């Protein structure tokens, strides 16, 4: 599957089919990430059962503490 993640086209392995799996794939802890798919924000409690599809535009924002 090919998705556009943070503006870049990325090939995802076949076992990545939900938002939760996507975050896991990128080693991002789900509680500190914000995910938007095709301009729609995904609530954290929906990560497990929100499917991602070929061609989706996905934005992943993670929080950092520095400054």
């Amino acid at each position: 599957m090919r998705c556009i993640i943070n503006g870049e086209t990325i090939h995802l392995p076949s076992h990545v089919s939900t938002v939760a799996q996507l975050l896991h794939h990128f080693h991002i802890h789900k509680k500190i990430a914000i995910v938007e798919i095709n301009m729609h924000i995904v609530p954290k409690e929906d990560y497990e059962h929100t499917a991602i599809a070929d061609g989706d535009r996905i934005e992943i924002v993670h929080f950092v503490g520095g400054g």
Partner: protein
Amino acid sequence: MNRYSRQQLFAPIGEKGQRYIRKKHVLIIGAGALGAANAETLVRAGIGKITIIDRDYVEWSNLQRQQLYTEDDAAKQLPKAIAASVHLRAINRDVVVEPIVADADARLLDDFVARERPDIILDSTDNFDVRMIINDVSQKYDVPWIYGACVGSYGLSYVIIPNETPCLRCLLEEVPLGNATCDTVGIISPVVHMVVAHQTVEALKICVHAQVNRKLVSFDIWQGQYRMIDVHKLKKDDCPSCGKTRTYPALQYENETKFAVLCGRETVQIRPARRGEREWTTLLLFLEKCGIQVEQNDYLCSFTVDGRRFVVFSDGRVFIHGTNDIQEAKRLYYQYLG
């Protein structure tokens, strides 16, 4: 010639906006890279008053990006809040600048905001513990705050308006641990300025009662990536900070001496439960009797024992450099200062 003429020519501010700006009080928490740049921008813009709180002192490794400080400040180990206030007053003597050398903990921030009711709180801190305190204080006293953070070449910013936008706790279910920090993956100065540009423009908008940007902004300035996300759907009715039943979890005080590792710095901070000025004379006499050499300025003293450098602040806090081991720090603290 009016020093603010160019800013007043900018129509969304104008002369009226400038008068608003002159009446506002901004609380800046942290006087590191973000704090120094946020403070300088607002002081040049002619803000009425800024209060800047910081627990640290100027070191050589700060000079690469913490724009207000000079080599002289680092050589003298001046507390950042003090050094910042000196430079800020030299930039614009019309602005009231109030430095506070202290750890911005729940008690200090709760008391300060309850008493002073600043118009805006600008986050310039380096950890989520204090941001959650800011988040609760903001909700409790209905003061907007502006999150800003950066590491490496990545940064983000978000405006939190009580009763309107989701709060930080709505967006973050828990405090991130083991995150990358400026001490582990570094940081470049341009991303600091990008975060500060976003924070200060929103601060100016709040000052002149313009509509703020409600989106979460994030960017990687090295990669040339920039994005804005609408997060208003993440506001939670049951949020303990901004929801219907609030407990303000970050404001639950603990009255004990606290030991904390300062992330990535090989330093332990000790914050005694009892506040107030440390009794210097007795301490200095004691150290002298032990044959320990002490360096001192008006705000702190430092000395080295057992290969560990101690920095003792006049508000009672102590840094022990050269260790990440809380147990060792406890032993040393109670041995020499307890």
